[in-house]
């Protein structure tokens, strides 16, 4: 199917171009901070996209997704503290630990549905939060400073702002591509079918929870990658990234951008984090604006910003 030229596709195309060209703009204008800011946004976009995989496509509303940010981050941070600086070890460990955590949490949580699922994932994330808060060897809840960014044997220098940005962007696009393929694959259709009607899927021969669990693990792993990136970006990791409000932030990004649409979470992350940043420049009472904006988006833009764009074509 040829992508149609409509409002949402044009916006997405423009957006991708802008993201790719951002370092050029930054270099030309000397505005370094915009690159710093967008590095963070891109990382959160990746996390949100992974949440979208389970929430938007899989119907699993995880309220504990920020846990993987922490787990990926701590994997990098703890290894760095213990003197293992190589990214070739740190990152696979980060992904593996996230996957393992997702596997355990998922296997237990997937016994429940709906709001119960929301709450049990929240519970596990909170436990992860409290456990890391108790790791006094690694800073407890004061957090852990990552003195040196992951070392990729000269292939790429994470301390170089532009290189690091492009690495993050590559991870984001890679993640999105992966998600896109998954969603349209046999596996993806089953997962979406299970979201829509589990009983029916069981009756035609699918072991619903097995697909859900695999999907859950994939999403957790992708988010673990975002966590590793975030730790490198912040040079710091602390339990605060796992607190339930951060999971809430991720959810907001996904819903705001548009659940179940590939680029929705990216747009959601950009809009949400930019709004937060910009509003805080303008006023100390940013909630007075941001809050009603969110409310209005829900009321008037079903399916988030992507939903809104999708309808603009027809109107």
């Amino acid at each position, binding site marked *: 199917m040829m992508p149609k030229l409509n409002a949402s596709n044009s916006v997405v195309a423009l957006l991708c171009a802008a993201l790719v060209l951002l370092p050029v703009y930054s270099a030309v204008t000397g505005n370094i901070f915009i690159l710093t800011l967008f590095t963070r946004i891109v990382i959160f976009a990746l996390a949100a996209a992974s949440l979208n995989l389970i929430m938007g496509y899989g119907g699993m509303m995880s309220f504990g997704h920020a846990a993987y940010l922490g787990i990926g981050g701590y994997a990098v941070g703890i290894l760095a503290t213990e003197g293992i600086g190589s990214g070739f070890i740190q990152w696979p460990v980060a992904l593996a630990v996230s996957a393992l955590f997702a596997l355990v949490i998922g296997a237990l949580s997937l016994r429940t549905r709906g709001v119960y699922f929301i709450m049990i994932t929240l519970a596990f994330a909170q436990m992860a939060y409290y456990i890391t808060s108790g790791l006094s060897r690694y800073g407890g809840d004061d957090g852990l400073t990552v003195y040196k960014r992951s070392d990729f044997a000269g292939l790429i220098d994470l301390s170089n702002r532009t290189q690091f940005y492009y690495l993050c962007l590559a991870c984001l696009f890679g993640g999105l591509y992966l998600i896109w393929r998954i969603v349209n*694959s046999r596996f993806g259709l089953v997962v979406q079918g299970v979201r829509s009607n589990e009983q029916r899927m069981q009756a035609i021969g699918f072991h619903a929870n097995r697909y859900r669990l695999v999907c859950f693990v994939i999403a957790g792993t992708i988010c673990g990658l975002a966590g590793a990136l975030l730790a490198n970006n912040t040079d710091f990791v602390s339990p605060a990234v796992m607190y339930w409000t951060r999971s809430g932030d991720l959810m907001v990004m996904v819903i705001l951008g548009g659940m179940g649409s590939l680029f929705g979470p990216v747009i959601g992350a950009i809009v949400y984090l930019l709004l937060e940043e910009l509003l805080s420049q303008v006023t100390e009472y940013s909630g007075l604006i941001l809050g009603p904006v969110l409310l209005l988006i829900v009321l008037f833009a079903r399916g988030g910003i992507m939903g809104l764009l999708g309808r603009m074509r027809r109107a």
Partner: protein
Amino acid sequence: MAEPLLRVDNLVRRYGGITATDNLSMEVVPGELHAIIGPNGAGKTTLISQLTGQVMPNSGTIRFAGRDVTGLPSYKRSRLGLARSFQITSLLKDFSAIDNVALAAQAHDGHSFRFWGNARKERRLRDAARAALERVGLGKRADVLVSQLSHGEQRELELAVALATKPQLLLLDEPMAGLGVTESARMVALLKELRKEVTIVLVEHDMEAVFALADRITVLVYGRVIACDVPDAIRKHEEVKRAYLGEQHAVTRHG
């Protein structure tokens, strides 16, 4: 008589104080169309659900194709060749009709941990799905979202989905309900054809259809089998008349 394809022994299922299935035994032989009738709440749907694994019995055994399937979860039974349609329509509402059926075909195909290729472009699945849709008369509605199909069309889709898993035994829970006269007639014709290919258990309140189709009929009342015989015998069965048919249907006769 041939070796039974499905054999149920002393099945019991209780809900609180209600015994929905009461020490029920029955057999379905290969190739037959076996109808199950009985008053509302007699336990027909509960029986089907136990056969396909949505509901687990309290006791008793279910053997299918020579294998004890009593404890198997529904997805495993489906893979063994048991398929059902639901009395209360149960479809993927936000999927198109053909996607619903293609997923069933995919389930039958058995390889669903494929993460890469575009499943909607797999000719084999699509063709199988389209064939099933054509068969139930929904060929033209393939790309319509289920939520936009009328009630009757959804009932037809139920059957198409069950068919697409290429079952050995098809359990149909009131497939005629909600169909108009034309569609009912078409369904009867379709079932007549299908029965040549697959063994069918049919739960139905439409007596004209039942008597037109069934090889044997089992009558359930309060979870118990009160009769199991060929249609003509059932038609004359006094207890069945009293509990279920009433006088009118006892005398109507269709070819």
